């Protein structure tokens, strides 16, 4: 799936910048008991930590800096709540360090800048909310013996808020060329909760243990972090394996010369964009991608001479394809989508078929578009016209509209 990219064109960018800077400035105003050296050490630690990253299911990489930031208030609050301001300074310096480092490695700097602002804003709100809850507990006269519980509650509240801010900012700041739906992006970012939870909890555990246990805290928080690290790398690998397998399967009819080269790749590429345009969820888009890649797999049956003699319909190919796909248990719902790819969305004299999955309708339209442009030699506008003309029964008008929008965005047809 094409990773959504952040660009500076987003109108929200300056707003986030302003809010982030304001939050940091507010933090820096306070008096601090920390020495410059201490602030510097934290900054370096954060910068280093942000180089160790975990792959999350959204395609983002989340770094160990989350864990270090989560531990910050625990370690610093032992002295004075005011030290949180210094922590804010350390966080901003560390993140700035990351930015400089990554830019030197020639990452697209806008994207990194956006990430730095997002994390900076997130960390700043985490620290402010944490300090706020601790101060509130003081004001309410919670006994000193319960301070650990106050910290736990402060952590839970502030961390949830932090996650919410991160995901929302990410969803709103991504403005790719494809104008992805906000719902899609937010759900995609929210899928990272498991990685974020393990990072933040490791940080909090370290924070609690550091005061009471000293260096043993590193082992106690470090080994579980190792588990998490391995787990998320393996999950990434299995996601990649599924993707590669399906791509390889989709290529079989093409290698055998039974379907045109690149057809399933192009169809799925367009289907993804149409699905995102229509506001499908990330899971639905993944299923759509898989079924679009494999929609022609039934064609491998076609070099059976007896079948060629008997003749076959598109319906048959869809059915054979679904039978092959259904053999893999993890693809059973993809098989359903493949089976229904040739059904019209409406039959003469009937209401539209509400049971028909959106993904099947998308495959029907995008596959027909690719067939028209690549094999029948139609121009994109003519091909779009074919879809419009078929919108009475074959192609769902909503899908055809979405195809048009995708083509306009790709600047293939004039807007």
């Amino acid at each position, binding site marked *: 799936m094409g990773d959504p990219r952040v660009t500076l064109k987003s109108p929200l960018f300056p707003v986030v910048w302003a809010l982030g800077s304001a939050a940091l400035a507010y933090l820096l105003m306070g008096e601090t008991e920390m020495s410059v050296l201490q602030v510097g050490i934290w900054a370096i630690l954060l910068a280093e930590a942000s180089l160790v990253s975990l792959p999350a299911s959204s395609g983002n990489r989340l770094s160990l800096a989350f864990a270090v930031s989560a531990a910050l208030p625990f370690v610093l609050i032992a002295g004075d709540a005011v030290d949180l301001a210094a922590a804010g300074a350390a966080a901003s310096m560390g993140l700035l360090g990351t930015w400089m480092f990554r830019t030197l490695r020639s990452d697209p700097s806008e994207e990194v800048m956006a990430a730095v602002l997002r994390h900076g804003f997130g960390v700043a709100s985490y620290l402010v909310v944490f300090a706020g809850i601790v101060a509130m507990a003081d004001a309410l006269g919670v006994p000193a013996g319960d301070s*650990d*519980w106050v*910290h*736990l509650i402060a952590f839970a509240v502030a961390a949830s808020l932090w996650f919410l801010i991160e995901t929302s900012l990410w969803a709103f700041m991504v403005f790719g060329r494809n104008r992805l739906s906000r719902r899609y992006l937010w759900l995609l970012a929210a899928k990272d909760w*498991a990685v974020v*939870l*393990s990072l933040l*909890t*490791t940080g*909090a*555990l370290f924070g*609690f*243990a550091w005061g*009471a*246990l000293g260096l*043993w805290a590193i*082992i*106690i928080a470090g*080994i*579980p972090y190792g*588990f*998490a690290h*391995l*787990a*998320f790398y*393996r*999950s990434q*690998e*299995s*996601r*990649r*394996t*599924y993707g*590669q*397998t399906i*791509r*390889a*399967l989709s*290529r*079989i009819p093409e*290698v*055998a*010369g039974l379907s045109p080269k690149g057809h399933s790749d192009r169809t799925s590429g367009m289907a993804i964009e149409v699905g995102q345009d229509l506001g499908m969820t990330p899971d639905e888009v993944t299923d759509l991608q898989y079924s679009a890649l494999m929609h022609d*797999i039934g064609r*491998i*049956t076609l*070099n*059976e*001479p007896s079948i060629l003699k008997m003749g076959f319909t598109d319906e048959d190919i869809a059915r*054979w394809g679904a*039978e*092959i796909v259904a*053999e*893999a*248990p*993890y*693809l059973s719902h993809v098989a359903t989508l493949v089976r229904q790819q040739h059904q019209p969305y409406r039959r003469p004299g009937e209401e539209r078929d509400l049971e028909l999955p959106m993904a099947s309708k998308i495959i029907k339209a995008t596959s027909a578009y690719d067939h028209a442009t690549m094999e029948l030699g139609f121009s994109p506008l003519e091909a779009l016209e074919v879809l419009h003309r078929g919108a009475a029964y074959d192609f769902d008008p909503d899908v055809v509209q979405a195809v048009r929008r995708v083509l306009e965005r790709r600047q293939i047809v004039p807007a």
Partner: protein
Amino acid sequence: MHGARKRKIQIATLYAALGLSVLALLIWRQAFPPVTLWVAFAAAFAFFDWRSVEVNDRMLMSPTVMVALTAAVAFGPGKAALGVAAMAALGAFSSDDVRQRRWFQPIANFGQMVVTAGVSVFVLEWFLVRALASTGDTFWLWIAGGSAVVATIYGLINYTFVTVAVRAVFEKRDLRPWSNLGQLLPSYLLMGFVGGLLGATYTILPVVLPLVFVMFMVGYLSFASYGQLREAHEATLRGFIKALEAKDLYTRGHTERVAYFAQLVGEEMGFNGTRLERLRWAALIHDVGKLAVPRDLIRKKGKLTQDEYEELQVHAHVVEEILAEVEFLRPMVEIASSHHSHFDGGGYGGVGHTHGERPSPEACILAVADAFDAMTSTRSYRMALSQDYAFSELRRNAGTQFDPDVVEALARALSRSSERYGSPHLASEEEARRLAEGTQVTSHG
């Protein structure tokens, strides 16, 4: 079958008796830990135990050892062994067993888990008493050392119980993966070690308990992800095999049999672990290239023409083209694409094949397994030949087309397991072809 049932009853009785006596002994000697705390840990223990993940062939793992050791340290000496043994007793009975009406599994598990938990935590208590008598780093060293030692004991007892039960009840050779103790122990050790330390952290800072449960979850994720990855690999292979079978009924079974023969020879030649698995997987994908070869060519009766032969050769490269992108299959593709290479460097093949050079041992094994199955199974153009005939053919071409060591290894493995393939008597190619023609004629008529 009757014998197996009898042995099952014997094992279940023995294990249950052992479990019950350990439990009785602990109830007599120890106090029960605080109920709320016990319920929290017991719930976590059962939760993870019921969700064990298959990380290797029939090897189930879950972070229960971590939960057990954390709970043990949290309960403290004098209560720990009873508390953890009671948790284990509860964890043995899962809803799956009830639904599938299994009786042996839960009873044997009950005994196994109670004894494992009771005995190992009892040892841990010895360390705990010493830890509690000291302060500072010494405290942590006792805890860390104790939990590492106890995790090893936990793993060993558990392993012994499972091995004894499996040997006694199933007597199957394909349960060997359990012998990979070297793979199991490090993960027990690491989990137990962390578990002990987390428990000690709880005794100092009770507030971390919710975080400790999240850490259990993280430990579980690391197994779950391993299981997922394994599943992804398996599903990949299955997908290709099914696609292949959909195309050609004659291939059905061929792939699985070749994989089985390759595995037999691999084991005979001392392959194990990853190398054996790779060989098996290479065998499973060795015919994927056929997907792109016209079906009438695969089923062609009689000799192939030069053109047709060349077209067939292409399939060695097609394997590579189709599978190039699937990263984890790359080493296997190399083996699979050279399964038509000859021992003396002749034949044809893809990247794994260099003309004039001896192919890899894996490719030699695959070549023999493929040829053996081709001769001993019925094809469109001839009936299955006898096993003796197949071996005489393999031996005749040993040293040129086939690796003589591999041929002998297959003969040894098959004679040991006293399996026989192919027709009992058919020992001539011509005869087999003529018979196949005959059946064709009758089926037309």
